[in-house]
């Protein structure tokens, strides 16, 4: 079982967003970056599947500047075997990035390529499915369960009002949602071992995309609210406000 995990480096979810000087991206000053939370489900799934198979290799791949190497080391510390840094500047166009990833992955002999459901920065939610399409392999997105048996993957995913079950042959691309598993934390031993694991640097050229970022802005602030009172005595005032002022009741 040879599995690739495509990883993104994103601002920690507790980050307060400040728009940068150019008005098209965030100000990264003082921002703590972490592995994309959804990618951790992909990493956990990959490590667990390889362990269960008893043989194979897990490879974590990230496209970006040199800062992604720190994120790749975190994945190695979790237990991934080796890392590949596709050194280049990601495009605002997910398809351009997908082309770079697909180009790297196509001859890798992978049984599975795993992504997080989305990256919690740009919320693009597209690169995984695009890589699958470019590779011409099956894809299931936002999976919450996975069983691999006899060269096939069986998955479930949440849809409005239900749970959809699907299956496909390997090789396949899967994107992972919360609920798939509980990601392990890197152990001290893992962190030490990660320093010695291979991290290959592959310079890449990201093709021109069809997406231009016009602006990034903060949403309008909500007008200051009103504390209606304390305890159950304030309930009638709330119900009155919801009925006559807000008209939502």
């Amino acid at each position, binding site marked *: 079982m040879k599995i690739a995990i495509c990883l993104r480096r994103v601002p920690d979810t507790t980050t307060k967003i400040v728009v940068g000087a150019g008005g098209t991206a965030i100000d990264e000053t003082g921002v703590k970056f972490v592995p994309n939370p*959804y990618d951790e489900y992909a990493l956990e799934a990959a490590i667990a599947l390889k362990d269960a198979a008893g043989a194979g290799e897990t490879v974590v791949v990230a496209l970006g500047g040199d800062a992604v190497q720190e994120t790749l080391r975190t994945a190695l510390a979790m237990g991934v075997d080796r890392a590949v840094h596709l050194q280049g500047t990601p495009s605002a166009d997910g398809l351009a990035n997908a082309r770079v990833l697909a180009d790297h992955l196509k001859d890798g002999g992978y049984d599975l390529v795993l992504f997080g459901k989305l990256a919690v920065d740009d919320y693009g939610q*597209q690169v995984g*499915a695009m890589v699958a399409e470019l590779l011409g392999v099956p894809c299931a997105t936002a999976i919450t369960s996975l069983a691999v048996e006899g060269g096939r993957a069986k998955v479930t995913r949440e849809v409005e009002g239900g749970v959809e079950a699907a299956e496909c042959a390997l090789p396949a691309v899967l994107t992972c949602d919360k609920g798939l598993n509980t990601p392990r934390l890197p152990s001290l031993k893992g962190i030490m071992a990660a320093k010695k694991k291979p991290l290959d640097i592959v310079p890449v050229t990201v093709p021109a995309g069809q997406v231009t*970022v016009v602006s990034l802005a903060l949403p309008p602030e909500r007008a200051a609210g009103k504390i209606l009172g304390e305890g159950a005595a304030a309930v009638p005032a709330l119900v009155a406000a919801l009925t006559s002022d807000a008209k939502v009741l």
Partner: protein
Amino acid sequence: MANVLAVLEQRNGALRKGAAELLAAARQLADQLGGSVDALVCGSGAVAGTESLGAHGADRVLTATDAAFAQYAPEAIVATVKGLGAYGAVLIAATATGKDLAPRLAAAMGAACGMDVTAVSAAGGAIRVVRPVYAGKAIQTLDLAGTPVVAVRPGAYAAVQAGKAGAVEAVTVPAFSARLMVTGITAPERASLDVAEARVVVAGGRGLGEPQHFALLEQLAAAFGGEAAVGASRAVVDAGWIGHGAQVGQTGKTVAPELYIAVGVSGAIQHLAGMRTAKVIVAINRDKDAPIFKVADYGIVGDLFEIVPALTEAVAKAKQ
């Protein structure tokens, strides 16, 4: 002049709700582009609701019929759309299924994909989309060149009465190779509304104290008579008090209900990101300094075990 294609979603032979909303977005964009709106309905037989699409803004309704469409069949939909010819933009509702389909289609067409957008318009030669990023902590505006695939967030557009012809034409489903086989959809164990779809969300956090106290919120939700869903903060989802499907926030769902009632939720930045576009926010919390009060339209400070039952009773009475 460029036409707009709206790819509509159906399940079990009936259009999903949201078809009229998507047509409203398509109609507005097509009018800006000086083109017409085609609505594509892929079904395994007749699809209920197809007849109403003209009234909601479709100039033409294209029906593609294939046994594969008994379930979600992404490769078949992609092949069908590719067989239709040129459009200025392709619109899809950003539901769970739509978010799966949009990037597949974009990659197959060599197109840009605007995901989960709240507004789409023509801007010079490009299609301009506005979309929340960082779970709504920031708003991004993008210009998409070519024929982009745009997934429009449910609730972003209101359905319109447009009175177009809506003439139905059958289109062929070209040969496709099914790579993903969807085997079925099972309803959740407890039939409940999805937090992302409900008009009212009642969300609980650590302040509930114990998992079984979610029953209080279930009762409050029930008082809204089938319009409300129960949501939760990350803290209580991670603690296993409630399923992850209920989580609202940056690593959960982004919701925009008409009414959001946060009970015992302190209002961590990543939770606020997921619910700040609710029309009306109510906060009930013991701590008068909790950040949730900064985004709430109405707040009550105090013991939720006293306030929530009183509110449940008052809502039930008001709904009578």
